[in-house]
């Protein structure tokens, strides 16, 4: 699809907005609908759209496969790591209240961190899956 000028220009404008919107969804999840999972999917959708229009190779230049794979793994580790941190600070597993002096703040930090973990993993996984499917296609064609 890389010969379609209108698509290319439109995508170039839209993709940054999609990525920005993903961040909004991520950090606004406390107040309205949204959160790590939706943000991760939207962020990945931005990259996937870019890949669909400009081709797999250029997408992988912007967002290399190893980064996606690293993200997929590190999000889970971050989430589980928050739990371990609360163990070390004397609470139960995933008890965020002990993460700060004030349980309220602790809950805030905890939720922020685990939502970040969810977003990182979901984003990494979706992009990884897309890359693997697309790469399979390139070999066939």
């Amino acid at each position, binding site marked *: 699809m890389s010969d379609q000028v209108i698509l290319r220009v439109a995508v170039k404008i839209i993709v940054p907005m999609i990525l920005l919107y993903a961040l909004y969804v991520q950090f606004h*999840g*406390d*107040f*309205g*609908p*949204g*959160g790590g*999972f*939706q943000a991760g*999917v*939207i962020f*990945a*959708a931005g990259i*996937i759209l870019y890949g669909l229009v400009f081709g797999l190779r250029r997408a992988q230049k912007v967002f290399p496969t190893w980064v996606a*794979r690293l993200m*997929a*793994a590190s*999000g*889970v580790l971050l*989430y*589980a790591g928050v*739990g371990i941190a609360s163990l070390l600070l004397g609470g139960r*597993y*995933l008890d*965020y209240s002990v993460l700060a002096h004030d349980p*309220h703040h602790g*809950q*805030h930090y*905890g*939720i922020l961190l*685990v*939502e970040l*973990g*969810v977003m990182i*993993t*979901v984003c*990494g*996984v*979706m992009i*990884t*899956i*897309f890359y*693997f*499917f*697309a*790469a*399979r*296609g390139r*070999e*066939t064609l």
Partner: protein
Amino acid sequence: MELFINFTLLALLAVTALGVLHVTNLFAAVMLAGIYSFLSAGLFTVMDAVDVAFTEAAVGAGISTVLMLATLALVGSKVTTPEFRIESISVKGRSRRPLLPIVVVVFTGGILAYGTLDMPGYGDPDNPVHQHVAPHYLEESGHEIGIPNVVTSVLASYRGYDTMGETTVVFTAAVGVMILLSALRRRDSYGEEAWGDEVIDDMDVGFKDAFGETMDPGLAGPEREGPEGGGG
């Protein structure tokens, strides 16, 4: 008004689902399934589940559809109509097959409907689900957690462990896809020509490899990626 939207959405959902059942072109079926997800996202909004609606729209209608289309690009989108194919292949016991699924489905649906008879009515505030556990989230999360979106509070804190499991499920999917799709493409080693009639020969090759090279695991490299080691 809400009732009207509800009915419209439900009718559209039913039509779309039947459409997926009926169309023979996979591309059309995938699109209809995407529409189904989108409509259900609408229904979720009507039923106050905005977070779920958001996710369903992004995942069901977005990511799932993209994956489906990516798959169709690889496997083609024509369904060879069942009736035609079945005769040409003549699978045993085919004649009774079409009846079995409908019996299973009617039976399952009947039991489910029977099970709803004692269920509390839709939208009734006296339902058990609104009396136990949930009120705690709605009344206490404000000062226990301190963020307005109760769904986020429950998701990330009260039931945060479930969400960790969910994140792990997503990661598992990535591991699964990587295991499956990072395999070398060796169609010839799997194709009919290798596995059809001369399959015994092929097995013997497997034997030979095993006998010849197996003693030293270090040698079990490139040669073994042939007929049986490559994983296709």
